[in-house]
């Protein structure tokens, strides 16, 4: 990851994977489904077994290695953490 740019052209093969990360980040209904039943939620998006394994539990390096956009990984992770731990915001 350090050899190329920090943000590279998203490879077409990772479209569904990036779509899933985007949905976790930007679609509250999908995010809720993912939290409740990740296997079923991932089943909506025709992901490979390797992609599903990297998404749950979320493995940043594995996801980025498969073409996921680093920012989408970062923000999907943050949204999941906020949803799982509502007390993790407005700490001060």
């Amino acid at each position, binding site marked *: 990851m350090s050899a190329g740019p920090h943000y590279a052209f998203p490879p077409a093969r990772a479209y569904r994977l990036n779509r899933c990360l985007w949905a976790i980040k930007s679609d509250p209904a999908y995010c809720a489904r993912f939290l409740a039943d990740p296997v079923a939620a991932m089943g909506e998006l025709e992901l490979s077994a390797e992609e599903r394994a990297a998404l749950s539990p979320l493995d940043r390096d594995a996801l980025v290695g498969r073409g996921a956009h680093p920012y989408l990984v970062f923000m999907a992770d943050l949204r999941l953490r906020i949803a799982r731990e509502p007390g993790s915001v*407005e700490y001060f």
Partner: protein
Amino acid sequence: MLVGAFACAHTPQLLIRPPTEDRDLVLRVHAAFARVKRRIEALRPDAIAIVAGDHVEAFFLDAVPALAVYAGAECAGVFGPYRYRFPIHEPLARSIVEQGIERGFDLLYTQGAALDYAFYVPLHFTMPAPPVPIVPLHVNVYLPPQPLPRRCYEWGAALGGILRARPERIVLMASGGLSHFPGTDRYASPDFDGDRGLLERMREGRGRELAVLTGAELDTAGNVELRTWITLLGAVGDACADVYCYEPSWHHGNAVAEWPL
């Protein structure tokens, strides 16, 4: 007419205040935002045109515009428990699209895309009372190939011309930066020295020098979002920045600045 120009960091931690952040640092950035809000109130704008980098929120990989204008009636965005909705200054938005196209910029426009937090985090803190309508202006910063910094500067110069010719009193705001690397293995090591050099050039009115930076240089410095500041620099020309604050956190170079016009 263009009555004010500001640039603001927008890192969501400033809004959501998680325990990972340095409380005092965040409050110092909030104080700089409060100063921007007071200044904007004194400028009595009719609208705020805000240039921000979409975080793959309004535009996913289905369509990736380099430059876009939100020209609907209102816009809305959601970030976890936070909900925002803003009226759009429709005549201004439409004139930016029409005159931008006439000036040779092939702008995308939308009347319904979601609003990214890059827009509403600064507006959360700086929207004057009473509030004014906005015009969101998108620059693609996270999905390569992004527009060249030079192109952003040129778009900003054209945008400045459009805003100056309008009858409304308009504040232009850039949202973004400075150095940060979200989602990468450099997240905890931004380029703060690089940021200080950029701010010094902006203080000295040498903003046009930033237009010659390359996309690769911005990526290396964690400053892909500087494109929004460079757009504003195109609009303000050689005005000197008054840097309200530069607060480097463990992951982000938080900067707030005004270009007195």
